[in-house]
Structures are given as structure tokens and as C-alpha cells.
């Protein structure tokens, strides 16, 4: 599904450069649910962004679903992002002047789907996250948990192969976090491959595999016994 080898990334800060990723090797199979952990500055978000094609690596190999991701034009990157990837952000990143339904339908718009079709599909996904009654509400009228569920519906709308979540529970309280995690686990049960960045141990333990980063290298990569989130809800 996903294979990374000897990935390097550094950022320029003034005259000096900061080496964030120092040769990452990682392989993720289909249906896995991986937590990437590490303290801030460990490079976990950078790694996720590179996997999400939101950022580019300096060197190394990245193969997604058999396709080498290298030197993509912006246009091609846009197509790949749309086709392969769904994003869930810590700050939800919904477009504030679009209602829930329109936000969910946006990736389908960029796929070139017809208006009626994509509205039906978007509504289907909203229903899946339990928000079909809120379809015509603006993000500001929704709670944090609801916003994240809209974001999840949006990430799922284009039926991506890989779901990327950057601290998906970072802005939520514990109860809501567990609800969201239960939902994400459910998606994984259905076969979706999920990659998430978190620094919370309990959230990480709800995944099936934990990859720990420190100073730009992988310290530990182990399978764990998944803790179900439902028990806390």
C-alpha cells in the first residue's frame, strides 16, 4: 500500500538548515491503522505531510499504491491527493462559508462529479457520521465533535485509499475524542487504511501499530493490541 525508504527532509531556517527527517523507512499494508508518535519537533507531522503530498521530501523514495511519488507537478499532485488521500486535521479546516453538505461535497466537485450526484453522495457520508440533520448548517453552528465528523465525512467522500489524520482529537475533549476514535476504528474495521499523528498514548493505543519518532528517526515500530474506544463512550 505504502512504502517509504530513506526519506530525508530539512527546512531552511535563516542561514542554517534544520534536518527534520533523517532517513525514514516505513511500510504500511492495506487495512492497517498506524499511529505515528513523538514529541513535538520529532518530525511526525512532517512525515504525515509528505505522505499526504502536502509537502515534498528532499530525497528518498515514496511509493503509494504502486505509484512513485516524486517531482509531481502541482496539477498531478492535486489529482493524486483527490484520488488516493483523505485528510483529517486537528483544526478541522472546514470552509467556513460553506455548509456541512457543501464541505463534504467539495472533493467530489474537484473530481468533476455532477452536482446532483455529489450532493447525494455527500449526504450519504454525512448520514454515515450521523449528521444528516445538520447538513445545511454552517461550521460555526456545529460543535467541535460535529465539525470533526463533517471533516471525516469529507475525507471519506472521495473514497480514498488512505486516510491521514493529523492529531484528529487534539482540539477535542476526552469524551468527544473517544467518540471520534470509535468512529475511526469503525472505518478501519471496514478495511480503510488509516495513518494518524498523535502525541496521546491512550489515543495511540487505539491503533493497531505504533511508530515512534525521535529527532527524525524511527525509534520503535511495534504492533499493539487495539484498545476499543467504544468501551469509553
Amino acid at each position, binding site marked *: 500500500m505504502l512504502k517509504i525508504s530513506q526519506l530525508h527532509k530539512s527546512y531552511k531556517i535563516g542561514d542554517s538548515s534544520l534536518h527534520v527527517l533523517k532517513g525514514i523507512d516505513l511500510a504500511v499494508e492495506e487495512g492497517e491503522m498506524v499511529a505515528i508518535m513523538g514529541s513535538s519537533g520529532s518530525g511526525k507531522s512532517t512525515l504525515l505531510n509528505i505522505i499526504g503530498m502536502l509537502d515534498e521530501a528532499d530525497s528518498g523514495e515514496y511509493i503509494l499504491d504502486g505509484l512513485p511519488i516524486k517531482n509531481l507537478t502541482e496539477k498531478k499532485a492535486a489529482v493524486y*491527493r483527490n484520488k488516493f488521500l483523505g485528510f483529517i*486535521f486537528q483544526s478541522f479546516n472546514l470552509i467556513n462559508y460553506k455548509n456541512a453538505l457543501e464541505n463534504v461535497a*467539495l*472533493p467530489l466537485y*474537484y473530481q468533476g462529479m455532477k452536482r446532483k450526484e455529489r450532493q447525494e453522495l455527500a449526504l450519504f457520508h454525512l448520514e454515515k457520521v450521523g449528521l444528516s440533520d445538520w447538513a445545511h448548517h454552517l461550521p460555526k453552528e456545529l460543535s467541535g465533535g460535529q465539525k470533526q465528523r463533517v471533516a471525516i465525512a469529507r475525507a471519506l467522500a*472521495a473514497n480514498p485509499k488512505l486516510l491521514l489524520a493529523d492529531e484528529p482529537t487534539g482540539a477535542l475533549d476526552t469524551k468527544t475524542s473517544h467518540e471520534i476514535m470509535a468512529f475511526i476504528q469503525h472505518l478501519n474495521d471496514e478495511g480503510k487504511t488509516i495513518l494518524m499523528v498523535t502525541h496521546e498514548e491512550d489515543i495511540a493505543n487505539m491503533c493497531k501499530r505504533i511508530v515512534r519518532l525521535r529527532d527524525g528517526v524511527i525509534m520503535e515500530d511495534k504492533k499493539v493490541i487495539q484498545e476499543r474506544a467504544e468501551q469509553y463512550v
Partner: protein
Amino acid sequence: MFDLDLWREIFQSINKNRTRSLLSGFTVAFAILLFTILFGIANGLKNTFKQAFVDDADNAIFIRTGRTTKASKGLQAGRRIQFKNEDFNYVKDEFENDIEYITARLYRNVNASYQGEQNTYDLRAVHPDHQYLEKTIIQEGRYINFNDLQNHSKVVVIGRLVEADLFSKTTAIGKYINLSGIPYKVIGVFADDGGDDEERRLYIPITTAQYLYGNNDYIDEINLTYNQDLNFDQAIALGNSITTKLKNRFGVSVSDQRAIRVWNTAEGTKQIDVMTSSLTVIILVIGLGTLIAGIVGISNIMIFIVKERTKEIGIRKALGASPRSIVSIILIESMIITAIAGYVGLLIGVVVIEIAGPSLEDYFITNPGVDNSLVFGATLTLIIAGAIAGYLPAKKASQIKPIIALRND
């Protein structure tokens, strides 16, 4: 290709971000509004200048006589100079090639009456060419012609207001009116743009007046228009040449300013030309200034809008928007706002001018108005400027990595 979804996206963005849309629209509308009003007022001023000279032909030369102020060629000062038919013919023959129309004038004041109605009017005895010199507009009947001159016909062309004064119940054409005891047949009624005074005049053939009032061949004044193809300098030279030749003919000192007076409209026209062209320059400067202010305004707003939308751009890119779709959504939105706002500004400007126009005549502003094509041109300029100003930041925004755009909180 017409992409309905793209337009939906754009109109939603305009509609849902009303403050932003209104603010940017306001700048453009205001620029176009100012542009329209300033241009309208300036055009009104120009019209006033022009109108002041439409009454008479603008290529006319008037030759009048008076008493000599200087002794010359053995003749004393204080001698009265009197034109006669032979002088008229002399000018006509001497300057034949340069003259377009020429007429003599004889002034009288007459008491005109018709069936009990009566009034006093200025009477001018003239040649047929006078019609073109004075820009007399014949409303009914005809003007004086060559036959009238030949036959010393007792015919009269009366002003529109004379007809209104004397013929309250009937039309004047064909009736006989009494001018200080002599009956004249009314052959024409005229109008004149010069105002009410001009329309309270009577015109009769010069020969008739000479025969009836004094039985001589005296002339009070010679008026002519020069050929339209004479340029300004040639027209001035013609006037000077006429002055010199007539002074010589009457034995008047060259430096005598009163005996023979030649008034050449070319001199006045020149001043008006300078005036209107400097006015045009002022108008252009004002218009250009307003436009530049508008362009600067729209550029600032575009940069601000792109900045404000950076995060949205990041989200869209993460969801699979191509750079091109980002640029086009921003550009088309700004162009729509500019076009609509420009049109609104134009509309308001035109309405303001339309309403305020008539009351501005006291301030020497006549018929203020703007060429529509000019305003459309101005709006188009703003649209293009807005597009260029928006394109660069939009292009830049579409190329930044989505992760940087997303980080921008």
C-alpha cells in the same frame, strides 16, 4: 466551456463573503462614480463654451464704421465714415476667393402692427446670405431671396416671437403687416438659437430699405464669413487685409481705431479653442487620476483578499483543487465584482448628473453627460487592472504548498 459549477462556487463565495465583496465593489463603484460625475461636469463646462458661440457663424467678420479720430491725408478728425453699396461690392469683389457668405446690414427701429396688435421691433435690412451668417432657422415660408432684392419687394421675414406677439389667432404667412406706415407681406417665420431677443427681429431686403428709408444706397455694416478651409492664421490675415484696404479706400489713418472697425471671430475662436483644449487636458488628468486611484484601490483589495483566502486555498488544494482552478475562482470573482460595481457606479453617476444637471446651468454647466463608451472603457480598464492585480497574488497563492497555506491561521 461554460462551467455551471464554477460559477456556483464563485457566486456562493461572493454571496457568503458579503462584507468583502461589498468593500471591494465599493472602491470600484466609487471610482467609476467620481469618474462619471467629473467627466460629466467637465463636459458640461465645455458645452457652455461651445453654446456661447453657436448663435452666429464662428467664422464671421463684422465690419462697422464710425467717426475718424485722427486727421489723415488732409482730412480732419471727426469725419463720419459711411459705407455704400459700392463699398459692399468692393469688399465682395476684392476678397471673392476667401468669402463664403457676405451681406450688408441696415438697422431700423420700427413699429409693427397687425389688426390692432402692435409692438416695436428691431428691423434689419439684409442680403439673402444673411440667413447663413446669423444661422437663422426658417420654420415656415422662406427667407429673402435674390428676386426680392431685384424688385425692391416689400416682404418681411419675422421672428417666431413676433408672430406670437402679433398673430395670436392666426398664422402670419401671407398676411400683410404694417411697419411704420408701410405694409409688408410676411413671407417667412424664423427661429434662432441666440435667444428671445434674436427671435423678436424682422428681416427685409436691403434694397427695399434703401429705397424706402432715404432713397440712398447707404449701408450700416458689412458682415461676411470666410471660407471654412482658411486656417486660423489665414483668417486673421484676411481680417487685417480687409481693414488695411478699407482704411486706405476711405483715407483713414492706419492707427485710427474707430473709423473702420473689423471684428474677426477667428480671434475669439482661437481663445475658445485654447480654453476648451486646456479644459480637455484638465478632464483627462482628472479622469486618469480617478482611474489610477481606482486601480490602486482594487490592487490593494485583491492582495488582501488573496491573503485572507490563503487557508481556504490550502484546504481546497488538499482536497484536490488544481492551481488553475484556484486562480480562476479568485480572478473571475474579482472581475464579476468589478464589472457589477463599475456598472452600478456608472448608473448612479448618470442618475446624479441627470437629476443635478438642470440646476447646474447657473454654474456654466450645460448638458453635463458622459460618453457611455468612455465609461465602459474606464470600467474595462478597472476590470483588467483588477485581474492583473489579482492574478499575481492568486498565482502565487495557488503555488504555495498546501501545508504552508494550512498552517496560516
